[in-house]
Structures are given as structure tokens and as C-alpha cells.
């Protein structure tokens, strides 16, 4: 399943054939994405893959050059108030006004959201250990991220949009706070979209993922289905192989001499026959991690990338 069917659930975000160029650089190239309500949707991709550009389109901070973007059925550029009123957003480097105190930030933010939950905001503030009278410019990077998360979350948005939220947080805060917040949102039936470099984090929290590579969606779907489709198979050859063996259906082949590791996607059934044909036998097989899947897809030759040590049939 390349894209989940729009009929499977109500769409929170529905993007079709979205493209965006900055000068000669294509940031997004025909991206189509469907985010079902109540999902925790992880966006993965290397630096410059187009994650932030995609999120900016969802927020209406960029106008679609081609294609359409709908959030809760609305165009975020034409109807920013309707869309932004239901979104909580935290950017990688929250550009919070440094002159404000935390209490002022909360009071200011509260005015824009009728659904603001003051008790919840106070609970989160205590949980994050933030001083309400402190000016935002005196906060550390991690504290600023917490303040941003608090302001984004306290109105219980229908869609929580987090762009690389972990970059300013230490591992303990990341695990105890960020993931707890994301789970709380999901348990209440709300939706989270978050982008991250940390694939382990995405794997632990998300139920849906989309992988972006050079502005294109190369993989999108339910995480468990994606993981079930991808297998990591170790092949043992009778004699050392000078170059990577060509294996049909493999995403990547890596190794040296007699031992070669293959990441395959749905071609598992044919693999024993292909291996036997090449004079190899399967010595080990297990589900591929998201990290391995990501690297295999990022180096897929059809995407125009060079594979380094890997060779792909």
C-alpha cells in the first residue's frame, strides 16, 4: 500500500500533487499525503528532504505553486483563521518573542483559542518546571522548546504539528514529556504530525509514517504494515563475491565477501529461489528496523542517489 485510501478515515490533512520550487531547487515534487484523524503521523527524511516546507504548506505559510492542500477540509491560505484555530504548532527553533514573560505568552496565546484549557496549561507548566515570571529570552534552548510546546498544546488542538521538536530537548525530557504529550493527544482522538531525524523516536511513537526524499514521498502508510513488508535477510555465499550480487526486488544489498545483507520490500517470497540461483543460502532473517528501511529507500537508485557500498538490483 503506497498511500492509505482517503476513504479509510476522515482526512485531517489532504495534500494532492503539491510541488514547490525555490529558484532552481525543487523542494517538493508532486507530493500527495493523507493524514487520517486520530493518527500519530511521523514525517521522516534527511536534511533538505522537504519536511519543513511541507509543514509550512499545511500551516499556510507557503502558498502551493501546484496542487492542493486541505486541512480539515479548508484551504490554509484562503482560510487561515479556520485552519490555524485548530492547530497547535511548534517549530524546530521556536521564534518566541524574547521580551515576553511566560505568563504573558500564555495570556497572549489564550486570546486566540476559545478552547484554551487554563488548568491544563498550569499542569503542563508545572510538569515542565517553567517559571511564569521569567522572560523568554532568558530561557535555555530546551526550556524554550518546552514553553513552545506548552503554548501549542494548551488549547487542546485537533492537530498538533511538531517540526523537529526534539532538537532542543535532552533524551529524558524527550521521552518523559514530548512522547507523553503526543500520547495524550492521540488518546483524546486528536491528530499529531511530527517530523524528526530520530527514527527510533518516530518508530516508538508513530502509527503512520511518510518518508520524504529530495522532495518526493517515497514511502507512506501505517508503520506496522511498512515494517511487516520490509525484511532484513542475510545471505551466505559459497565463495566470496567481488561485487554486490544483483537481486531482483531488493531495496539494498550490503556486505563483503561471503556474507551479504539484503533489505527487501514485499519480494520475500521470491528471495529463496533467487538466492539459490545465485548460489547463496539464507542464514538469518528478521524484520527491518525503520532506520534500515530509511537508509535502503534513501539509497534506492530509482531516486537518483548513489548507494555507496550498497548495490541494488
Amino acid at each position, binding site marked *: 500500500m503506497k498511500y492509505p485510501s482517503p476513504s479509510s478515515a476522515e482526512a485531517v490533512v489532504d495534500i494532492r500533487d503539491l510541488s514547490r520550487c*525555490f529558484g532552481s531547487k525543487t523542494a517538493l515534487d508532486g507530493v500527495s499525503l493523507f493524514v487520517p484523524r486520530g493518527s500519530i503521523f511521523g514525517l521522516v527524511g534527511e536534511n533538505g528532504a522537504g519536511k519543513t516546507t511541507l509543514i509550512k504548506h499545511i500551516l499556510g505559510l507557503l502558498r502551493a505553486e501546484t496542487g492542493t492542500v486541505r486541512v480539515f477540509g479548508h484551504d490554509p491560505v484562503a482560510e*487561515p483563521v*479556520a485552519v490555524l484555530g485548530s492547530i497547535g504548532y511548534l517549530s524546530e527553533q521556536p521564534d518566541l518573542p524574547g521580551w515576553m514573560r511566560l505568563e504573558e505568552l500564555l495570556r497572549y496565546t489564550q486570546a486566540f483559542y476559545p478552547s484554551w484549557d487554563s488548568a491544563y496549561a498550569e499542569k503542563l507548566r508545572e510538569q515542565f518546571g517553567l517559571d511564569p515570571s521569567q522572560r523568554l529570552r532568558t530561557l535555555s534552548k530546551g526550556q524554550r522548546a518546552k514553553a513552545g510546546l506548552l503554548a501549542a498544546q494548551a488549547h487542546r488542538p485537533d492537530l498538533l504539528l511538531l517540526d523537529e521538536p526534539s532538537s532542543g530537548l535532552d533524551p529524558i525530557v524527550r521521552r518523559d514529556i514530548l512522547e507523553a504529550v503526543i500520547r495524550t493527544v492521540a488518546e483524546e482522538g486528536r491528530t499529531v504530525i511530527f517530523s524528526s531525524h530520530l527514527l527510533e523516536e518516530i518508530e516508538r511513537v508513530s502509527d503512520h509514517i511518510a518518508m520524504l526524499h529530495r522532495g518526493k514521498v517515497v514511502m507512506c502508510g501505517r508503520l506496522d504494515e511498512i515494517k511487516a513488508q520490509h525484511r532484513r535477510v542475510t545471505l551466505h555465499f559459497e565463495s566470496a563475491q567481488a561485487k554486490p550480487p544483483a537481486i531482483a526486488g531488493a531495496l539494498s544489498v550490503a556486505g563483503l565477501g561471503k556474507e551479504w545483507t539484503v533489505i527487501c520490500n514485499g519480494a520475500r517470497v521470491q528471495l529463496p529461489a533467487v538466492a539459490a540461483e545465485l548460489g547463496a543460502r539464507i542464514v538469518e532473517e528478521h524484520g527491518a528496523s525503520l532506520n534500515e528501511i530509511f537508509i535502503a529507500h534513501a539509497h534506492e537508485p530509482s531516486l537518483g542517489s548513489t548507494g555507496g557500498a550498497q548495490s541494488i538490483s
Partner: protein
Amino acid sequence: MRSPTAALLWEIRKEKGWLFWLVIALIFFGWVLNALWGGNFRATEDGRQQLLTLDSFLACGSVFLVFGIFHYTEFNPQKQWTGFPYHLFTLPVRTWRLVALPMIAGVVAAELTYLAWVKLIFVHNELVRPAWFAVLIGTYLVFFQTILWALAGFRILRIVILSLVVTSLVGVAFMPFFSKFTPQWWLSENVLIAALAVLALLAYLTAWNIVSRQRTGGGIRENWLKKRADQILDLLPRRQSAFTSAPAAQFWFEWRRSGLLLPGAVAAILLLVVGPLSWHLRDEAMIVLWMLPQTLAMPVVLAAAMSKGFSKPDFWSTNLALPSFIATRPLATGDMVVAKLKAAALSAAVTWALVLTFLCLWLTLWAKVDQLSMLRIGFWMVYGHSVYPQYAIAALILAACVLLTWRFLVGGLCVGLSGNRRLFIGSAAVYCLAAILGITSFAWLLNHDQHFMAWVRHDPNELLRVFERVVAVAIIAKFWLAAYSWRRISWRRTWQYLMLWTDATLLLVALATLLWADGCLTLSLMSVLDFLPLDPYRLECFLILIGLVTVPFARLGFAPSALTRNRHGEFIAKDAP
């Protein structure tokens, strides 16, 4: 590139390469100018003076450009200051060398530029004391860099100190010339050169010490001025209750971010300059008539100076894009513009309340108001022996001043909010150019064109008629543009602003009519203009037309659409991610 010195010099050249070429182009231009037409110019004393002035301007310009090249700083996002390039701190190069290299390179470049002018362009004896000026240029560059690096944490204070040092050093530059009149040993050129050399060495040592501290995480972390400003703001009553609506919250944000600046600046000038000066000169008879117009003009001039900053989405930021913190608020762009307009209005009102309070205190407590009383008597006589027109004029002038202050603050919103850097810089350039060209042309016409002067003296109403036509065309264009710019704005909002615009314009028209009453203004102008025969009716029409063109209408209609385009990233850099 094996040596760190070569790498660092390469970096400077690479970063500011185009400025190097500009310096070379200026020198080349000066050389060509002197080679081709130098003889002709030097044939007469007037021509020689004109060429010397032009050469001096070009030489100064090229030396300033060298200062710009060696303005060796970098923004440090962690410390939020622009100081010594912090990316160099991780290089395996000692601090004394990191600091000395741009200084020595800068001094050498400045001296070479100066030498090129002295040897290639200026002829013998044209420059007085060339060695003294060579030393000055080198020393100034060292001071300049030291101040930039040492006061990295002080943004505005650094500019103030730099201005004070520059002013003082201009005084120092003239010191050897005074030795003719007061023969003091310390005014001799050699002693002054030695003193400057010692000061330059001390400046280098200071820069070395401070950059060393910055390199190891030291330096002044907090902006001193900002800290003091925060302390003052903390004294003000703080809002404790929730906002009634999103537009109210946005208005508070704009007021706190940009609106407070003008009243703050005016209060500082009144307290630190106007107040002490008026107290010090309180016994001077003419001081009230001299200081009162300047005090009244000061907020309007400051508003005009601040207008570019106020029109941007963020006053202090050099980035014209709407910050994502604001862009992601669920608030219509029209409401954001209205919040800015209201913040400007409150800013103008508070500013003038401060000025009025000061004037009340000054004029009643320590001012010598004899001359003012004479003026009032004059008005009393002209306006039918009644004091009420005086009160009406004073009230209308005050309201017009508030209006003008607001007008200057909001006039550039459609440009500043657009996020279009070219438009932003271009509009400023057009205003500057138009002002310079206008003043220069007018001055030239007055001084050189006898035919023009004869025409003006013969019938000044003709000149007034020309101005009238220009203003009338501007009004027609204004209403056409307004019809276009307001077409997408809701009828309710258009109606509200139309009412405001009408009230404000009527106020100005009323002031114009009252000033003209009984030909009072005409008489004053005639006395200023050597009793040229002005037609009072035509003058009144002209003032009314000025009143119609003053309050912004069309340009404010463009502001919401400009901000919308900015909000949706239509002017972001081509290479932005």
C-alpha cells in the same frame, strides 16, 4: 592555502570582494578625471577648488569603503550580538593573531588607498600634512574595530559611542593646525602622532583582552541597555487579566513591541535634552520662541525617522518576513494591520500627552514667556480682538501634530509589511533621492536661474498655481488608487476608515481655513517672502488641497494584501528551505 594568515585574509577578500573592486573603481575614476580634465579645472581658482572638493569626497568615500570592508563582525545567535566573528574561535590560531590580522590588514589597505590618492590624484601641495592624515586613518581604523568588537553586547550604545568617538576624533584631526595660534608642545604633529600610536596600541590590547574573554565564553552576555529598559518596563503596571479578544491581544503585542518606542524616545529627549536645556537657558528672552517650534516638531520628525522600523513586521529585525510566531496566529491579516494602526494611534497620543505635559510644566514654571505673549497679542489683534481663535488654533495644531505623527508611523505599512526587501529599500531610496533632487534643484533655481527668480518675483501666484496643479493630480491619483486598493476589504471596515479619514481631513482643512482667516497667514508669508503679493484665496485653496492629500488612504488599503502575501511566503529568498 597552507598558512592561517592567508586563509583569514582570503576569507575577508572573498566576503567583501565587490567592495575592494569599488574602491579600485573610485581611485581609477578619480585618476581618469584628473588625467583628462585636471588641467582645465586647475586653470582657474574656482575650478581648482571644485576639483579639490570632488577629489576629497571621492577619497573619503574610498577610505570609508575600506572601513566597511574591515567591519569584521558576525552575528552570534547564541549571544544575540554582532561582534568578532565567533566561527574563528574554534580555529587553532592564537587570539592575539586573530585580532591583529584584520587590524593590520585593515590599516595596510586604508594606507594603500590613501597613498594611491596622494600619489596618483592629488597634485603637489594640494594636501596639507599628508603624513598626519595617514596616521589618523590608520588609528581610526584600529579604534573602529576595537569599538565594534569590545562593545558587541551594546547595540544602540555602541552606535552612540562610535558617533561620539568619531566626533572627538574629527576634533583631534584639527589639533596640529592650532599649533600656529597657540604654540603648545603637545600640539606638535610629532607628539600627537606618538600619542595616537600609543592609543592604537592600547586599543589593540583592549580588543585582544576582550576577544580572549569572548572566546572563552566571557564578555558581556546581557545587553546593558535592554536590561535597563526591562527594569523600567517592569515598573509599569503589568496586565494581569486575560484579553477580551484575539485582536485585543494582537494590539497589546504591537503596542509592547513597537508602540512604546516613540513615547520612550520622546520622553528620553525631553528629560535629557530639552528639559535641561530649557532650564539652563531660562533667562534668555528668545529661548521660548526658539525651542517651542523645535519641541513641537521633534515627535513628528522622530516618527518619520522610526516609520521604516514601525512598518516592518518586527521593528528590530532585519528580516522582513512575518515571524512564524505571528503568522501562525488564527487571526485575519486585516486584524493584524488594524492592530498596528491602533498601536500607532496610541503611540502618537501618548507621545503628545508627554509633550503637552512637558510644555505645561515648562511654560508655567520656568519659561520666560514675554515673547510668546507678544505673539499672542499679535494673534489677538489679527483675529478680531478675541482669544478664542487662538485656543482653537492651538487645539487644532495639537490634533494635527498627533495626526501627522500617526501618519508618519503608518504611511509605510504597505511597503514594510510586504516582506519585499527590494521594494522596502527601493522606496527608501526613492524618497531620499526625490528629497535630495528636489532641494538641490530648488536651491539651484533660486541661486542661479535669474529668469526663474524674475518669474517668481513678478507673479508668485503662478508658482503657487503650479504647486496646486501638482497636488491636485496627486489627489486624483490617490482616490483612483484608493478605489483599487480598498476593493477587497470588507465594506464595514472601508466605511469605518472612510469616516476616520474624513474626520482627520476636515480637521486639517479647518486648521488651514482658520490659519488663513483674515489673511493672517498670507500676511506672515508675505513678510517672510519680502512682501511678494500672494493671492489669499489661492493660498487657502492650496492649504486645503494639502489637507486632502496628507491623511493616507490608498496606501493603507494596500497594507492587508501586502501582509497576506508576506504571510504566505511570496517574497522569501529563492534559496530558502
